């Protein structure tokens, strides 16, 4: 092979740097590279599956050693929980019927239910400096960028990358993620930022006179159109008032088991379902910042009133 001179290899390297920068900017700003990502991800997916094998084998082996005593206890606990849930579901069904009838009387559009799909976590380690998880549902199952993800106890995050068989979900605790929330008690709107710590969220831009206390439950406000309204996001655990600063310093703990859930729910929002049926293309990613800006604007508007 011909030996290359240092200058050609330097030139080639400079070219690569330019391409990388270009690719980064395009990937950050738009979704043109989605197809490239999907194509290359099919190469990677088998590796990811193989990488989870040791864990799975360990789990299988563990199952052999579970005592029948423990199983019986689990069974009892689950059974009582089942009975409780069943009874509350009955009241819920009654309420739902009543609600439907009332809506019908009001001539309001009937609320379509959100479609939900269970997804299993693929336990591979991603970049430890961002809070992302990989789930086993992808383009094949019709997931799309921006789709909200829940676990049985609250909001987990949103889908940010879709690959053929898997999707990457950015968690609400990712330092770059912001979730529009409101206090369930009084409807006060705020924005919950991720901190990079899986059991903390930071609530910013609430003025010192804002009515928020320790123990308040924050639910998704639905602003920004990304998350449906009313799902629990976090519980306030500390409110600090530093007179020298313009805003309160508030910390909250996510309700969802951010780092423990192994099964999550992908939600197709009712108003998007028809859209998906027509065109299964990926929606453009608006980004957390714009969501945040919209939330802040609304917040300001409500304060001016």
């Amino acid at each position, binding site marked *: 092979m011909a030996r290359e001179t240092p200058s050609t*290899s330097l030139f080639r*390297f400079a070219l*690569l740097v330019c391409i990388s920068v270009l690719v*980064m900017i395009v990937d950050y700003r738009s979704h043109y590279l989605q197809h*490239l990502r999907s194509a290359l991800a099919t190469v990677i997916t088998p590796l990811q599956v193989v*990488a989870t094998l040791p864990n799975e084998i360990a789990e299988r082996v563990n199952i052999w050693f579970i005592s029948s005593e423990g199983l019986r206890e689990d069974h009892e606990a689950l059974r009582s929980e089942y009975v409780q849930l069943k009874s509350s579901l009955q009241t819920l069904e009654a309420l739902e019927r009543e609600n439907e009838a009332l809506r019908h009387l009001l001539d309001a559009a009937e609320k379509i239910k959100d479609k939900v799909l269970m997804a299993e976590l693929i336990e591979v380690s*991603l970049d430890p400096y961002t809070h992302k998880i990989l789930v086993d549902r992808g383009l094949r199952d019709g997931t799309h960028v921006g789709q909200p993800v829940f676990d049985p106890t609250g909001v987990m995050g949103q889908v940010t990358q879709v*690959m053929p068989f898997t999707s990457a979900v950015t968690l609400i605790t990712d*330092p770059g993620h912001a979730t529009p929330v409101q206090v369930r008690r009084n409807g006060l709107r705020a924005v919950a930022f991720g901190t990079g710590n899986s059991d903390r969220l930071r609530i910013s831009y609430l003025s010192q006179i804002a009515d928020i206390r320790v123990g308040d439950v924050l639910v998704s406000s639905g602003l920004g159109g990304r998350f449906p309204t009313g799902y629990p996001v976090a519980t306030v655990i500390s409110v600090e008032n530093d007179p020298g600063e313009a805003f309160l310093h508030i910390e909250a703990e996510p309700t969802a088991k951010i780092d423990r859930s192994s099964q999550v729910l992908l939600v197709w929002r009712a108003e998007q379902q028809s859209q998906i049926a027509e065109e299964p293309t990926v929606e453009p990613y608006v980004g957390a910042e714009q969501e945040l800006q919209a939330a802040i604007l609304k917040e300001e508007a409500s304060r001016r009133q």
Partner: protein
Amino acid sequence: MRIALSFIAAFLLMLVPLPDWATTYRPDWVLLVLIYWCLAMPDRVGPVAGWMVGLLVDITQANLLGLNALGMSLVGYLANRFHYRLSMFPWLQQAVSVLLMLLLYRALVGWIRGFFSTWNLDFTYWVPCLVGMLVWPLLHIILQELCRVPKTR
């Protein structure tokens, strides 16, 4: 073929889930393997191969495309450029140069990351570089033995 297999192994090592405390110490396996091949086969593996492998790493980690690609092409270029000198070095000196490359890579990647998103930088970010330096001699021996590469000139 040998190159591909060793990279696949490195990807698996990168992906295998570890307990939280151990994740902090996980060295950049893919990068270490890349450096090895840049030194052992400078004609075939260089910045271009580094860039492609880096792109795959970006996809595997669900990261911004091009982030690791840029870092790895830089390391590929440096390792390629100085492969004569580096393969002449005694063990310790070589390990220290590898440490420098790992640090440079992390610095570049961390810096760019700061441009595009918020993230928390603390000293644990640099720990994998040290671990990488420590496993380098071992990795070098293993790859050399397994792959039976004719010794670099």
